[in-house]
């Protein structure tokens, strides 16, 4: 009897050991030969959560104008308030963009600026849209609006929607009342220690006077204090312990539907892994740069006969979500290439961390080229941004401007600042990144 129990006990221990060992074999790729862990890919590839695809028409920042210039409130994408406000604004915009052409009135710039100094919400987008592409991405079948290029929208408390179409202003009445309630609720917020937000036009920095050298675009927000944000750690997911993380590589291959067993692979002198299949060539470099070039048609985006720009960009965003899921991250990204053309073939996207854009020097996080509904070129700077448990602050806006302009003033008579906003500037070197300013001067990007 005792012998039987001892046997059972040993058997249970052996079964437990075998389970632990099996888990190690399946999860830890180092117990498998390279390229032979296809089973673990299937178990670990997460379902893409559509962080990119669901935010194609989301603004990068929302500013609530309470009618008091000393109490404007800014909300970035990651805040819960942003999601609630955007949900309301999104419904109002769907109503506005569904209106017939006769309800879209051209108005003066004074109306636009008056709306911004009164009670309203301002939606600032990371790129410009045409009415057709914007409404297509919003899921509106047919919009009669003809706006060619807009990236700023204001919704007044009475539901009037204002569009700044590249300097021509339009108003669409919706009679929506929800904005008023939002403004009243934020007015109850304690504003004692909040930074005062002015727009450049409030301070007349957008108007030239005498020998004034620096002109700021009218909608640049100017913060009275330094902007605080998390310090983040920039990590390259391709590398682990100074070696290429084979599991991550295999998961990326899976996202591109490349079978690790059937492709031909080799390593370049700089350590870049090259995977060759009949359909295309995928390269993953040790510094986390992924490039895909199609050999034949490429990666099919849509089965539709003639996909337009909004169809293409939706499908691309879904594909980026799949790639991001393959490296186990729900990366927030924004479309940053203009969606003003009906036949756009090149698209760019950039990371967004904690609602703050991440910018690379003269590069974008994702660059995609499509042709006839197929991705023919794709590149991505693979990065994970992990927030640290402490914050950093940007320099004061005026100091940042002074430093940048000091570099250019000898070669430029007048300096037009087109964009200026807080951002993480990633030099690809990895490590900690503190919030800083992204400044775009005419066609020069200065960081």
């Amino acid at each position: 009897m005792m012998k039987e129990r001892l046997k059972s006990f040993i058997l249970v221990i052996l079964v437990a050991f075998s389970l632990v060992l099996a888990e190690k074999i399946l999860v830890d790729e180092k117990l498998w030969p390279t390229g032979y862990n296809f089973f673990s890919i299937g178990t670990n590839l997460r379902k893409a959560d559509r962080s990119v695809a669901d935010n194609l028409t989301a603004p990068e920042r929302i500013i609530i104008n309470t009618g008091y210039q000393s109490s404007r409130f800014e909300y970035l994408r990651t805040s819960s308030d942003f999601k609630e406000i955007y949900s309301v604004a999104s419904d109002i915009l769907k109503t506005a963009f569904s209106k017939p052409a006769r309800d879209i009135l051209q108005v003066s710039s004074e109306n636009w600026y008056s709306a911004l100094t009164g009670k309203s919400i301002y939606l600032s987008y990371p790129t410009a849209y045409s009415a057709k592409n914007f409404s297509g991405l919003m899921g509106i079948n047919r919009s009669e609006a003809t706006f060619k290029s807009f990236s700023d929208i204001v919704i007044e408390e009475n539901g009037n929607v204002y569009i700044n179409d590249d300097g021509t202003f339009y108003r669409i009445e919706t009679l929506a009342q929800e904005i008023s309630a939002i403004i009243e609720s934020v007015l109850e917020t304690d504003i004692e220690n909040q930074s005062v937000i002015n727009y450049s036009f409030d301070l007349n920095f957008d108007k030239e006077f005498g020998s004034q050298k620096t002109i700021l675009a009218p909608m640049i927000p100017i913060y009275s204090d330094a902007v605080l944000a998390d310090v983040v750690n920039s990590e390259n997911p391709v590398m682990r312990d100074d070696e290429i993380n084979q599991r991550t590589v295999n998961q990326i291959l899976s996202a591109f539907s490349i079978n690790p067993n059937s492709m031909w692979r080799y390593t370049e002198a700089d350590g870049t892994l090259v995977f060759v299949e009949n359909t295309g060539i995928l390269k993953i470099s040790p510094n986390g740069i992924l490039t895909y070039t199609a050999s034949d048609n490429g990666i099919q985006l849509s089965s539709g006969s003639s996909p337009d720009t909004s169809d293409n960009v939706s499908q691309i965003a879904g594909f980026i979500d799949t790639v991001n899921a393959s490296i186990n991250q729900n990366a927030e990204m924004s479309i940053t290439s203009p969606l003003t053309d009906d036949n756009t073939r090149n698209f760019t996207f950039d990371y967004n961390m904690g609602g703050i854009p991440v910018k690379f020097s003269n590069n974008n996080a994702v660059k995609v080229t499509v042709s006839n509904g197929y991705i023919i070129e794709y590149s991505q700077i693979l990065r994970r941004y992990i927030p640290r448990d402490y914050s950093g602050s940007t320099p004061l806006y005026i100091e940042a401007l002074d430093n940048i302009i000091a570099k250019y003033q000898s070669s430029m008579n007048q300096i037009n600042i087109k964009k200026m906003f807080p951002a993480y500037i990633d030099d690809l070197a990895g490590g900690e990144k503190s919030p800083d300013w992204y400044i775009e001067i005419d066609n020069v990007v200065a960081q």
Partner: protein
Amino acid sequence: MQENFGTSVWFLHLKGLLYKMKKKIISMLIAALMLFSMHAVSFAAYETQIPVTAQGNSTDLIYIKRPQTLSASTSDRTYTISAVGPQGTTIRIYRQVPGTEDCMIIKAAQQIGASGLYSTVVDLPNDSNTFIVYAENGTTNQVVDIEISKVKKSTVERLKSVTINILNFLR
């Protein structure tokens, strides 16, 4: 010998002249010293306060961009003053103490950088607030008076609405 004698006479003559003028020279030196010290004292005083009647020696060192007309009405608790000026110009902001002729410093010296832009947020504790913007660049200085009045929110909304209507009418 005759030459040496001539030099001595000339020297004695000069010495006598200087002796006669001694009092005048000392008085002039003292006056100059007082003038310099007054100038220094006046700038030292501007570090923390400035009389509301103060005037600069220039009117075009800086240009106030906001408020454009040097006076404004607002219902806000604060107001943002903006200006442009040449790089290296130092700006201080003072606010008049109600019922006195003195303005006390509320914004310490800040130098305009390469952008040429300046902005600062000032509190509006009173219904009527007089600010003095004091700009200085080398020996050039400028004093600008700014009046900011606080009004009720409803009054501002009415004024804004009337302005827009007039502008639309004129188009």
